[in-house]
């Protein structure tokens, strides 16, 4: 920490010598061959990672888009792909996706916060076991249980209800996610016990304790489980596929492959669908970018 704070001063007094050691490769901050090389490489990297997106977006707005004639800007701008998408029911799929993502994320975060509060702020018998179960669900990939899960969704044990074909068939299974319970409880553990004790002396009950004392201190962790949870739900593919009764139940991501296999649908409509599926994750990412980075690095150090 002290290293980084003394850094700018050192850089100002001795620009060439010290800033060369700011990066592992020793990139020079001054114009020269070193910088030119870096700029060229950066442009190359930009092309590789960003241009495909531009091509897709341009294709979605192009009158006659085709994979063999792709450009970075639409040659003849049009919205007709999106109108055609409406006829293919894409907006319905998008609505499915949004309902599933919103409901699933809300449920997942609520469940995680409650469970984490119990697991991290309380002591009770069987706590270690409960935490172990949470970690197990982290390790238990949802793909692996896809087949029995589809059977369970078709006939809930004890209740005898079939969830298939309803959005609940996707929302409920994504509601439990070990990762987000784990992140949340790790964070809650760090909150000093005194804060809670002081509030308890004032006669604060459990719910108020959680919502007015603990949760406001957990904003960073909420951001992390928010964006990771959203990405997890939005990325679901197998689950909506097996939870659907008929194609109209599909989420947008699943519907894309249906569209592709439909020969009456042109590539322009498919691209419009892809753009529609991209926009929500893009928005969430732009708003919660810091949380994303924080979550990744925390995950890396915690293992």
């Amino acid at each position: 920490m002290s290293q980084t704070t003394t850094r700018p001063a050192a850089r100002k007094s001795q620009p060439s010598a010290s800033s060369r050691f700011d990066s592992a490769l020793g990139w020079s901050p001054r114009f020269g061959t070193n910088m030119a090389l870096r700029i060229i490489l950066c442009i190359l990297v930009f092309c590789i990672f960003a241009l495909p997106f531009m091509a897709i977006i341009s294709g979605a707005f192009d009158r006659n888009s085709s994979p063999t004639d792709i450009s970075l800007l639409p040659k003849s701008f049009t919205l007709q792909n999106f109108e055609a998408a409406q006829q293919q029911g894409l907006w319905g799929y998008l609505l499915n996706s949004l309902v599933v993502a919103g409901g699933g994320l809300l449920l997942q975060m609520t469940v995680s916060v409650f469970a984490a509060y119990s697991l991290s702020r309380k002591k009770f018998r069987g706590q270690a076991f409960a935490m172990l179960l949470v970690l197990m669900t982290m390790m238990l990939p949802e793909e692996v249980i896809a087949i029995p899960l589809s059977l369970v969704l078709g006939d809930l044990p004890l209740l005898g209800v079939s969830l298939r074909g309803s959005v609940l068939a996707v929302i409920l299974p994504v509601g439990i996610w070990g990762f987000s319970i784990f992140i949340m409880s790790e964070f809650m553990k760090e909150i000093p016990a005194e804060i809670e004790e002081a509030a308890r002396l004032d006669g604060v009950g459990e719910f108020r304790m959680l919502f007015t004392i603990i949760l406001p201190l957990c904003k960073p962790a909420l951001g992390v489980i928010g964006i990771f949870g959203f990405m997890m739900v939005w990325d679901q593919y197998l689950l909506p596929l097996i939870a659907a009764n008929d194609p109209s139940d599909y989420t947008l991501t699943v519907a894309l492959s249906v569209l592709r296999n439909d020969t009456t649908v042109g590539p322009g409509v498919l691209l419009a669908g892809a753009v529609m599926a991209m926009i929500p994750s893009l928005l969430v990412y732009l708003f919660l970018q810091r949380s994303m980075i924080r979550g990744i690095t925390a995950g890396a150090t915690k293992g």
Partner: protein
Amino acid sequence: MTVTPTKPADLLVPAKGAKTAPSRRKRINGKQVLAIWLFLVPAAVLGLYFKFIPMVEGIRLSLFKVQPFLGDVFVGFDNYVNVLTDARFMDALGHTVVLGVSQTLGALVVGFVLALLLEGQARSLWVLRTTIFLPVVTALAVVGEIWRILYFPTADGPLNTILGWVGLEPLQFLNGTDTALWSIAVVGIWSGAPYNMVIILAGLTGVDRTLYESAGVDGATVWQRLRYITLPALRPSIVIVLTLAAIRSLRSFTEVYVLTGGGPAGSTEVWMTRMYSLGFQRNDVGVASAAAVLLLVVTLLLTVGTQFLARRKAER
């Protein structure tokens, strides 16, 4: 797992709260216990219904010949024998491992190069890093559709056009039995490398800058600096991330399913797509469940094994 987290609280309590804590706990004990379990109920119910019952059910089904209307017949380990002697499953296993290893290593190397290139405080670098991260946040199904278009196999397809500029023959990509698996691996690297970049960048900021300076004074080359200062500093975080990514790749499904569906001619069939087609398209639920249980066992063993190794290393 349970010992370390309670430490800070334990350290704080004895000084002042040793006597008061028990009495207070007694007073609100009933309420407290109720609250604890009340808060755990949603997670427990959902976990039971959508994780544990399916898991137990999967293990049960794997021992049966499942027939929808005729009733299930117990067959012992026949389904497992079927899976392990099935040539297509063994092919799928090979593809899974090749895909997993190439994606994991590729994403790590590319992520490392990206991190080295884009390390720095400048705002332009930050913008570039943000842009590059887009493939990670985009849903895999969408990434798949994007690459299906880029890989369009005619000579005037987007990537083949670029290959043409540098004088290479057009490739079949996803349509060729030799190239399809590698094409999928490239997509995995493309969408995974920026994630690793972020991890490595975080590691890079932790490297002591004075080490670079003294290495510079000693006349070390850039390569030596990387080899002896940067890499050792990054090792701990990379190792764990690598193993977890490798384990996760065992169950990759979406990208393969979207890009090739296992084709052409089964050349990209992985464990999960084989399982899916058996279980959902051919309704051979018993055998598919056996395959799932095998995947689960391998995943658990690898996860526990790496955690164990990592912990032992940390203790040493």
